[in-house]
Every structure is written in structure tokens, then in C-alpha cells.
């Protein structure tokens, strides 16, 4: 009974790996220009609400936003550029 299970697990793993490799091959690892040109307000409206309501820029001081930004990068697994743009938007919109 164990061998079919192992084979199934391996097959699932291979399919996932193959799928990922295919997608990586189809898309270069660098972001497209449209993605790279996204503004802080765009990234703020798209990413924060994936987990919770979008935060008001007036909630924290600029210095606190820096710390919150680092914490949120570890939770939402944002790229560093996304984090910096979102935090700049929040700091400048207070």
C-alpha cells in the first residue's frame, strides 16, 4: 500500500514542479514594465486587502510605517520594491 502512495506523492510533486518551471520559463523572473511601473497607491490597494482591510495612511507616523512595512513584508511576502512603494505612499498621504 505504501508504494502507490509514494508514487502518487512523487507524481504530484513532479507535476507541481513542472508547472512552476513552465510558468517561470514562460515569464522572465524580472517584472514586466507594467508591473514595475505600479505606483504605491496601486500596490497598497491590491496587496493589503489580500489579508485585511486597507489601512488608513493616518494610522501611524512615518517612522512607525517603516517598522510596520518590514513586519508586513514578512507576512505578505511582498518584494522589497513593493514594500518601499507602499510605505512611501502611506508616509506621504498622512
Amino acid at each position: 500500500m505504501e508504494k502507490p502512495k509514494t508514487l502518487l506523492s512523487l507524481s504530484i510533486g513532479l507535476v507541481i514542479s513542472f508547472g512552476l518551471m513552465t510558468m517561470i520559463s514562460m515569464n522572465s523572473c524580472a517584472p514586466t514594465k507594467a508591473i514595475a511601473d505600479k505606483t504605491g497607491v496601486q500596490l497598497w490597494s491590491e496587496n493589503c486587502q489580500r489579508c485585511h482591510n486597507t489601512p488608513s495612511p493616518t494610522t501611524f507616523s512615518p517612522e512607525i510605517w517603516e517598522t510596520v512595512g518590514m513586519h508586513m513584508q514578512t507576512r505578505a511576502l511582498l518584494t522589497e520594491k513593493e514594500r518601499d512603494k507602499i510605505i512611501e505612499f502611506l508616509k506621504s498621504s498622512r
Partner: protein
Amino acid sequence: MKQKLFINKCALITTLLIIVSVNLFAQVTGTVDSSIYDRLNYLEEQTNYHKSGDDHFMVVGLTTFGYAASKSINNLNGVITSSKSNSFPDGDHYEFSPMLLWRHGKKFLMEFEPSFNNNSLSVNWADISYFALPNLIIRAGYFVLPFGTYNKKQAAGWINKLATDPMGISAIPSTDYGIEIEGGLPLGSMKMNYDFSLTNGLQLNGDGTLTGGNITDNNNNKTFTGRLGLLPFSNSCLELGVSGMFGRVGDIGTPYENVKSNFYAFDLNFVKTFVPILVNIKSQYNIINVGDADYISPVNSAQTYTFKNRTTNGFVQCAIRPTGILALKDLELAGRYTTYSTPANSTWGSDQHSFSIGLNYWLSWRAVARITYETYTGNSTASQALNAFTGTTNTNTLYLQFSIQL
């Protein structure tokens, strides 16, 4: 003569007025200049005093408090019993958890979240992160395991859409001691993220259940946990994730030392506005397989028993919020179906289902008052020979809850 005298007087008065005005103006001008300089000096001192350094410390936190009233009916071999209960707070959903964050520049972040819940003090996480590269964070300490998304991203009361956690989510180990790497990566018009950890791992108990978060490893094998997430659309509205957790769970030097556990999870997160409605769909399905083992019978310690140690649980949750309708924008309707199946013929086997529906009223982006109604059905599949069979239980519970993050 009189006219000349009058002209002289007028000239004298005018001259005096000019002199007085000039003096007064000069005094005022001098006072203003001096106060501005004083103020500027003061502000400069204040600015220097408050200018941010490399280090920054802050405290945020969350609390969740509620009330729960439930009615339960149990049918055990034709014997029906019922019970009612109501209490402050709403069971184990109450928590008071300050979170402390230290930042050193943009490279180091320490996170510590103690929590008062379940009538005791505990720690949700205590770790340090090093932001090594733009797409690489290295973490060490006691942290939330990268398995699925619920424990790491959705469990907080002010984030959750319903008053309860999905059934069976507590069967998934949430935190452990170890090291972790994680990050987000651009992928053309898509994005992906990775999160891998190596930790002490889980410990197999005498009844086949597992516990985690041990500061001392119970064997020489470390547990690998990892999750890969893919956001296939350029607006990040959909995230699909696959997770695994693999390691030995038996105590070293015991007959269980070679017993392994394999965990798998699949998760989905979809959040998008279809004007005027914000749609939020979340789902996670978990599979837990533990290797075969003989356990000591609780009825007769001279005998052993075994069972297929496989647990599955999953949920699908949908919430809609009319953010584009001014009168209703603070209201959110949520529903969730949960299934939870634990090993048959063990002492804790069951087949459980629940359906929850709730209404949230958002007082701010991080404060919510909610009402949730949950129906639960549990059919015991536990061993009758081990006197563990508990029959069928139906429970209906009403929750009133408030949660805030500050």
C-alpha cells in the same frame, strides 16, 4: 502769522507721529524677529531630538472579546442528552495580545507577541528577521510555521471574517523553534513567494495525536516545512499555495523513533471588487498522514491497538462587502463550510462538519463587531472496543464578538 503758527504745529505733530510710528514699528519688528529666531531654534532642537535613529521600537496589539451561547444534543447508542451553556468570553477565542516590534535600520526586525488566552499566558511568536537581500528574509527563533495560510495570515480576530476558527485548524502545528527563509519574487506579470523552515518538529503522543513547539527536539531529525505561493494575475487578486511538512515524530530510543509524519496543504485566496461588491474567498485543505504504530490500549495496558492515522480538514469561506454602497459599506456578510475528519478506530476518531454564517460591522479598518451563528455535527468514529465512541453530537452556537487591533 496765525496761519504760519498753525502750519508749524501741524508739521511738529506730523513729525512726532512719524517718529513715534517708526519707533513702534521698529519695536514690533524687533520683537517678531527675536521670537521667530527663538522658535526656529526650539524647533531645530526638537527636530534633532526626535530625528529617527537606526533603531525603532513600537508596540501594537490586538484583543478579541465576546459572548457565546450554545445548545448541544448528543445521541449515544439511543440515549439522548442535551445541554445548554453561555459564557463570557466566547470560549477560547478571547485573547489579549500586545505585539512588540524592534527595528534596527532596514536590515533587522525583532517580533515578540505574548498573549493572554485560554486563561493563561503564552507566546504567539518571538523571532528575529534579517532582511538579507531584496527577495530574501532569514528568520530564527520561535515563529509561525509556513504551512497553509490560515495560521500565519488569517487567524487574528480583527482579520478573520467569522467569530471562530475553522474546525481542525488547531490540528495543524502553528509555531515551532527553528530557522526560516522566505521572500517574494517577481515573475513577469505574475508573482510568486516561497517560505521554507527547518524546525524541531512534532512529537507523537501515546494516542497517535501530535504536539509541537518543543524547545528540545525529541529526536535527531529536523522537520522541513515549506510553502510555495503563486499569484497568477497581475493585480494580485488570486493566490494559490501548496505546502508540505515532513519529519520524524517519534521519541528517540522508543519503538516509535522511525515513525514519520507527512502533512500537505492546498490554499486559495481570492479578493477582488466587482463594483460595488468586494468579494473575499478563502480556502485551505489539509492532509495529515502519520506512519503506522502500535499504541498501548487505554483499556488494557498489556494490549496494543493500531489504526490508520490519517486526518483531513478543510474550509471554504466567502465574504461579501458592499464597499461601493455608502449606506452599507461598513457591513460584511460571511459564510464558511468546514469539514474535519480524524482517524477511525482511534480514541479520538470523528467525522465533523460545521456551517457558519455571520455579519460583521466594521467600525474602522481594524475594529469589528460581529455576530456569528454556527451549526456543528459530529459523528464519532472512535473505537467502541476502547470505550472511546461518543455517538453523534449536534451543537448550535451564537457568538457576539468584538475585535480590535491598535
